[in-house]
């Protein structure tokens, strides 16, 4: 019998397990499907990690190793090369591995930290033929950075998400030619710093408001056709331009990987595509928590670690029966104007110490704006923000004082131009 089983040994799972341990949880197990801990960080060999959490700039593997090192001084158990096939409402975890076969493990609490997967060609209905040479940027990243294989010589990137931008630079540094980065939206989906240091530094053109209208090639990709799109994102006839290339990397979004959550009946959020969670990252099934990219897709691992520490701490408290708060009243946080999602979605006031950090994304680009917390149209708090973009997750604090002030069941978060 475990106190806590953490599903996934990437940044979220590691932080959650360590935090649970620090908060008094004793028998903890991390189940990781890969042969090593660290998750996607192992292939993210670029820098930019840790500025918030460690106050210094690290690469992905360094960031992971800091957490993995901390495990050594704990009693936390790790099962590698092991898949979790199913979890149940009463916290039974079905695992399978070469070494141990099929096992049923019982736990008191579970943290879900399975991460996310990439959207693929099938999700974006890209026309054209289906030759080799079209792959997701993350798959390419694994091939190039970990396994040491080149995936192409003349490369086009579709989508300007961070992985795509990072891979543009990686491919150039490894001797490939990157001909274009094509983005459907009028703004980039990635961090601005990555546009500068991954595209601009290497003179890779970024085509905003463009899409791919055709792909040719029988066995291997031969060319793509790019066209400008109108404000309804439809290709504008006459703007087509053919680019000869042998490789197309797709960086068209990430989706939380929630099969386990869905199968056990956890309530999901249509916007985040992750679980609906309370202020302490607890899902609709008490004792099951979620954090990291399985909950919502983050752009910064630092926020993943912070969020996961919260989940780990809450799991420890749950195990110690310090917070059996399932029956208490909650208030709902709604996405208002300009907000594409907000998290946590539900807050149990009694469980809030001083404040809750609300994470959100806007659904369009804002220069200078006001993010406001409202109740039935009445503004309870407001925050001035600059340069908000859908590609960047933002946060505002929701203070306990505000929660205590009024007896409310719902709050709306709204953004407006200042």
């Amino acid at each position: 019998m475990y106190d806590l089983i953490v599903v996934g040994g990437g940044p979220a799972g590691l932080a959650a397990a360590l935090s649970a341990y620090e908060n008094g949880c004793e028998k903890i197990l991390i189940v990781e499907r890969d042969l090593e801990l660290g998750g996607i960080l192992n292939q993210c060999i670029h820098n930019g990690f840790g500025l918030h959490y460690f106050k210094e700039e690290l690469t992905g593997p360094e960031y992971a190793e800091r957490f993995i090192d901390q495990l050594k001084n704990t009693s936390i158990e790790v099962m590698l090369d092991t898949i979790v096939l199913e979890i149940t409402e009463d916290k039974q975890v079905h695992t399978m591995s070469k070494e141990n076969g099929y096992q049923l493990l019982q736990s008191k609490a579970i943290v879900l930290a399975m991460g996310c997967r990439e959207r693929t060609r099938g999700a974006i209905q890209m026309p054209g033929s289906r030759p080799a040479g079209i792959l997701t940027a993350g798959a390419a990243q694994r091939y190039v950075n970990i396994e040491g294989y080149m995936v192409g010589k003349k490369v086009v990137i579709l989508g300007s998400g961070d992985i795509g931008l990072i891979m543009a630079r990686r491919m150039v540094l490894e001797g490939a030619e990157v001909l274009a980065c094509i983005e459907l939206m009028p703004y980039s989906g990635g961090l601005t710093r990555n546009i500068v240091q991954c595209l601009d530094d290497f003179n890779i053109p970024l085509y905003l408001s463009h899409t791919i209208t055709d792909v040719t090639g029988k066995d291997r990709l031969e060319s793509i056709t790019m066209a400008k799109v109108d404000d309804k994102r439809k290709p504008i006839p006459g703007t087509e331009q053919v680019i000869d290339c042998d490789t197309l990397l797709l960086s068209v979004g990430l989706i939380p990987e929630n099969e386990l959550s869905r199968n056990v009946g956890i309530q999901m959020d249509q916007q985040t595509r992750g679980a609906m969670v309370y202020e302490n990252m607890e899902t609709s099934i008490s004792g099951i928590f979620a954090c990291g990219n399985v909950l919502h897709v983050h752009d910064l691992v630092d926020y993943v670690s912070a969020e996961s520490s919260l989940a780990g701490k809450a799991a420890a408290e749950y195990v110690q029966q310090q917070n059996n708060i399932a029956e208490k009243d909650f208030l709902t946080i709604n996405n208002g104007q300009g907000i594409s999602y907000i998290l946590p979605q539900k807050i149990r006031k009694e469980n809030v110490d001083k404040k809750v950090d609300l994470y959100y994304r806007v659904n369009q680009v804002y220069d200078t704006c006001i993010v406001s917390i409202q109740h039935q149209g009445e503004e309870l708090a407001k925050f001035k923000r600059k340069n908000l973009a859908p590609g960047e997750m933002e946060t505002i604090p929701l203070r306990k004082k505000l929660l205590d002030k009024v007896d409310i069941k719902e709050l709306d978060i709204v953004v407006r131009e200042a």
Partner: protein
Amino acid sequence: MYDIIIIGAGIIGTSVAYELAKYQLNICVLEAENDVSVGTTKANSAILHAGYDPKTGSLNAKLNVEGSILAKELCEKLDVPRKQIGSLVIAFSKEDLSTLEALYERGKQNGVADLQLLTAEETLEMEPHLNSEIFGALYAPTAAVVNPWEFALALGETAKINGVEFKFNQRVLDIQEENDFFSVITEKGSFKTKQVINAAGIHAEEIHRLVAPPTFKTIPCRGEYYLLDLEEGETVNHVIFQCPTKAGKGILISPTTHGNIIVGPNAENIAPELINTGADIANTSMGLEQVAKGARLSVPTINLSNSIRNFSGIRANTDREEFVIEKVIDDFYDIAGINSPGLTAAPAIARYLVDLMAEDGLVLTEKETFIDERTRVHFNDASIEEKQKIIKENPDYGRIICRCENITEGDIRQSLRQTLPASSVDGVKRRTIAGMGRCQGGFCGPRVVEIIADELNIAPTEVDLDKLGSRILTGITKEVN
């Protein structure tokens, strides 16, 4: 010297190989590509039609209804996924209702069992997501869905176990008539045979022309599809057809044997020059829009944004109304123009052809033993105890490689060792469904490449995505200088 060479290893070639494998004949199947079922068999609606569609008295009607019954037996015997979920043809108007009545009568005359005309209420009770403004439906409980490439693979493997040879990457370039045999010349060699069966699918006319002037004209017709995530599996429970009108046969929505939802196809005749260029099986925005629009007519709420793959297939239409199953010259037979319901009819087509050849004098002496069964390891369907046992015997089954579909290393290695083994990533995918799920091989692709390289004893850079030469990796890093 072979007794018979079969050109093409699609559902027709493999059905014929299976049927002829019962007799004391020396048979070889020559396939242009690197696997069975990589042409039309790979990309179609995967439906075993009940048989109310073809005109009463036609060859197609006879072969459809017979084939539907044979396919059921074969799938059970040879361990092929088949689900008899029944089909509904939906009426959207009063005129459609009279078409349905005609189909009902035709079906009865064709010998289709258990057909039923349903009211709108009855239909909506069976399929709550259908357009609420429908007028009724024709219900055919004998219609089924099948895994088409597994069907061809099962037939091919059973043929092989019973002595039929398979040679892949052997595109036929020429056929020379000698005194009393043919020399079939491929890219790799020359093979002597007494008889030839042309089952080359979309290339059947080309093969035919090697020995005789054409008797039919191929009109390749593309159909585009969406394949939806398992999450959308509840969209419909039956094969949903639209009532055929002058405008066409409409767009179908159907569960697959695996629980995904398939949506399509439109019908677009394409230039024969496009065949084998990659552009022939390309998707187009117009085609996909047509499919989407048609699908929304049947199920207005269908969630096409949860698509995991688009693909398109080529129907081998000809200028004939019916299947072409006939002798071209002595000892040379065509099976051409096998469009819908060809997948269903395939086993019956094979029997029909064998009868035809026997009438022409082919001596059919049954083999003393004919192994007429086939089983696969169904790890995912096994109980926990069974799984534990399988992993104990072979730990490779304990490691999941494809996490979307829970396909293990054991399954993948098996697909590279089976009777007709995979030789590419897509070959593994067709045999195991690894990479067919929602991540479309994003995670498992690199792992599958590694296992293929290991099993075939080649470098990962030599592993193909699909057809021969469709390399995934272009080299190794750090070799640029």
